[in-house]
């Protein structure tokens, strides 16, 4: 605040001395008001990112303070959106800091009626076992017309349009190597 802060504790005195007799501005400011700073200034760092919602690809700046995301807004340098965002892009902080986000693995046993907790290691082991088993059980060296196909019809996958190219690359590479061909994503719905 360019103006210097008066030392008088009682605003009424400041009204008399600071040319703000009606107590409209300079005289009535609280200390907190004088020392206010935006989160975008007090942030530790800024990550340059891209909005996860539609395919326009609006540039975003993610402000981080004490390892927590404190603000996400448009990137003014981006030629795509010139710092602007739509309601969904503007709600990105609400998305990543939502209290409804899942943070632990949940497991539903066959015929179960409730979720159960599962630690990450066990879950990964269980999925790896099932992948190997399902792959083998539904393996087709030859199809019904005796054509060599070397594939498994036991594993299917859906998803990719919200994922990164690098992720899609590994997914396609791994599934193809395993012979899983029923691989699809939102591009076809």
């Amino acid at each position, binding site marked *: 605040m360019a103006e210097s802060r008066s030392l008088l504790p009682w605003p009424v005195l400041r009204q008399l001395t600071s040319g703000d007799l009606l107590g409209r501005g300079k005289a009535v400011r609280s200390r907190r008001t004088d020392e206010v700073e935006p989160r975008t200034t007090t942030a530790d760092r800024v990550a340059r990112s891209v909005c996860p919602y539609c395919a*326009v690809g609006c540039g975003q700046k993610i402000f981080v303070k004490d390892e927590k995301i404190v603000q996400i807004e448009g990137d003014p340098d981006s030629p795509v959106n010139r710092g602007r965002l739509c309601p969904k892009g503007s*709600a990105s902080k609400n998305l990543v800091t939502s209290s409804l986000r899942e943070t632990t693995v949940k497991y539903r046993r066959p015929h179960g009626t409730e979720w159960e907790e599962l630690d990450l290691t066990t879950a990964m082991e269980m999925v790896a076992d099932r992948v190997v088993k399902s792959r083998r059980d539904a393996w087709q060296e030859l199809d019904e017309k005796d054509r060599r196909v070397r594939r498994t019809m036991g594993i299917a996958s859906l998803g990719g349009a919200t994922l990164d190219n690098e992720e899609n690359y590994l997914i396609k590479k791994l599934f193809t190597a395993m012979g899983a061909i029923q691989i699809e994503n939102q591009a076809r719905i």
Partner: protein
Amino acid sequence: MAEAHPVGFQWVVEAQQRGAKVIHVDPRFTRTSAVADKHVPIRVGSDIAFLGGIISYVLENGLDFRDYVVNYTNAATLVSDRFEDTDDLDGLFSGFDPDKRTYDPTSWQYDVEDGPGEQSTAQADDSEETQAQRESAAGLQHEAHGMQVEGKPRRDETLQHPRCVYQVLRRHFARYTPEMVEQTCGVSQADFLEVCRAWTENSGRERTTALVYSVGWTQHSVGVQYIRTGAILQLLLGNMGRPGGGVMALRGHASIQGSTDIPTLFNILPGYLPMPNPDQHPTLTDYVDSIRNPGSKGFWSKADAYTVSLLKAYWGDAATPDNDFCFDYLPRITGDHGTYRTVLDMIDGKVSGYFLLGQNPAVGSAHGRAQRLGMANLDWLVVRDLFEIESASFWKDSPEVATGEIVPEECRTEVFLFPAASYAEKEGTFTQTQRMLQWREKAVDPPGDCRSELWFFYHLGRMVRERLAGSTDERDRPVLDLAWDYPVHDEGALGTEGAQAWGEPSAEAVLKEINGFDVATGRPLSSFVEMKADGSTAGGCWIYTGVFADGVNQANRRKSRHDQSFVAPEWGWAWPLNRRILYNRASADPEGRPWSERKAFVWWDPDKGEAGEWTGHDVPDFEKTKAPSYRAPEGSEGVEAIEGVDPFIMQGDGKGALYAPQGLIDGPMPTHYEPVESPFRNPLYGQQANPTRKQYRRDDNQLNPAPPEEHSDVFPFVFTTSRLTEHHTAGGMSRYLEHLAELQPEMFVEVSPALAREQGLEHMGWCHVVTARSAVEGRVMVTERLRPLRIEGRTVHQVWMPYHWGGGGLVTGDSANDLFGISLDPNVLIQESKVGTCDVRPGRRPTGAALRELVTDYARRAGIVDGVHPRVVTASADAQARSLAAAETSDDDQEGQ
């Protein structure tokens, strides 16, 4: 566009302020219409009639951009005399095999100099092959491979010859008169002609018109032909490859473009290389030749280099010349393995495990009930998402649990819900709708056990390889020989024991592999031209080569827009080779001069470089030093065959395709077919809907009856769904957020005041919408933004619904996608989920088992009987016979659906 891509819409508003006229053609008055200069309400599913009418207006009045059309499109090329059009064959093109419901495109081919009819096999596939192509959504590949044209097709530059494409097109659309458009689309002739005038007066040397569509346009049984019609019109008016022109697709997900370039799709490999199938691709050579079709022009000629580089990237040192670079390791597809086929297989119990990676089919895909019943019959399901989406909790709170069709205690599916890292908690690239890759920096670590897909699949692959380590079984070689050792960082950063401690694989390392590198030195390639077929280079996706040029992550460039041109080439990186407008050679005339100063974009500078170079505001989408005057030597092929006046360098003839002799399964030219579910008989000819569409004729996928079948009046209204600005696709990333959910808190159904009065619907009361699949309820929003239309002398009411709701999140409601059945576009197997017929009734829908009774009662009244499915081919028998006569193939092929 203002609804689902508001920030992209800033450029439309800016253009409007500079005097541009914005026309919005949409069944419903949306937020785009609110700001547009003109809103043209149109009947859902009649877009080809509308655009065909404009094409006819252009051709009848000779308003096409003649220099552009003659030089840059195949307008002058002559078509074989054996081609017969839909007007003569009651809605079919020539060469239709009614049993296999596909075309033999031989009769569509160009009239090539070495005598008509003797097209080489490479050029034409027989109807069995096209049936295989429908099954494997080959259109997606052909579209990118371009047509294969061998030999010199005859041309008539004066465009007078009756068999030149220009005249074939004119005759084809001759019946699309303003009256026909008014009768079919419900658009008044005045409005229609105003659009025609605006479009044509704003195209040519000095001005360009842009055609923008949202991806809903592709969700029709004739979706690909919708886009073809738009492309033909833009080619005729010379708007392709030029600034302010073109056809812009607005995609709904951040990286849908990326997920087809580096496809998690069943029918293609990265870079649009087709997944091999046993019949056409027994060996690597057959595979490569099927793509590049020797003799044709275009950049596909280097398909061998692209394929070998991919195989080297997949299997590294194991891929050697003598084992065809592990070509045999690739699994083969043998038909339709699309998501809808897989879901129906799940219902039949044929699928064991299912991964859902940031997708929510329980409410996001068509025929929600089938999706959920399919998931209920799996061995195991892995869902990776930010929230507990409906696809994860179907077993306890899906509509089918309410109707009793899924009983939790009896549902055997084992479900794993893995928490996923959000976009801000992992680094990597999206590919935006304008083919631009943008790298995202990681802001913070993911919370708790949330991890990225990169982490999950890298470690899953590692664990699977460990489990198969000792195997001597031949089938496990591809997994064990896989090049799968990526550098991992941040070990132990997110946890100390077990999987929590596993590190994150380096996304940059993966992007480098995608970019491609020299195997010996590891030097990143800077263009796909550098790719070799001898195994000396590796590259995960040839069209992305250059994203890591000079070892720099070009996708992470963020030079401020203030410091560069309006094309902003130094922000992110666009494939191919950072060209921002494809085919931008077409922005210059045949001599390489800009069509006009105002619209200059890329042009030939004779004194640049040794003998002149292409230059301009964008990276030229053309060989830099190939002069406009260059003509291909006799018998040349591939890149060398592309002449100085061939801007469309991916096409087999280097020209824009007004007429596509092959590559499209449902015809060389778009023609009006009614949607699969329509209250109207096709006004043009006997063939009611797309004869080559993909159908799944099953009792759990019955369709509403459409003329000529009876009882189509049981579902008298036309309905469509689309997006609200406040929500995102099926709601998985918006219904769980207070700040978005409170903006649109309840599922609603928009009806016109006239329909409200007719059906007794009360504003803000409840109504339910019924189809042969299900019934969904919503609050009634009576609004004048929807208006009844006069079609063929009858009034038709159109109903609109958002499809963002489901059982989970802060705001819940029924999912509109439950209403649609599954019938697919033949070229790319995308479902028709933007148009259907329905009934609308006041009050809330019945709950529990009563819901199924309501739907069954409707099916009964609509004459829907198990085991019986309406005819697909409704053209006259005589027409079918004459069309079949033009087909080359013998008739002993087996029955195919």
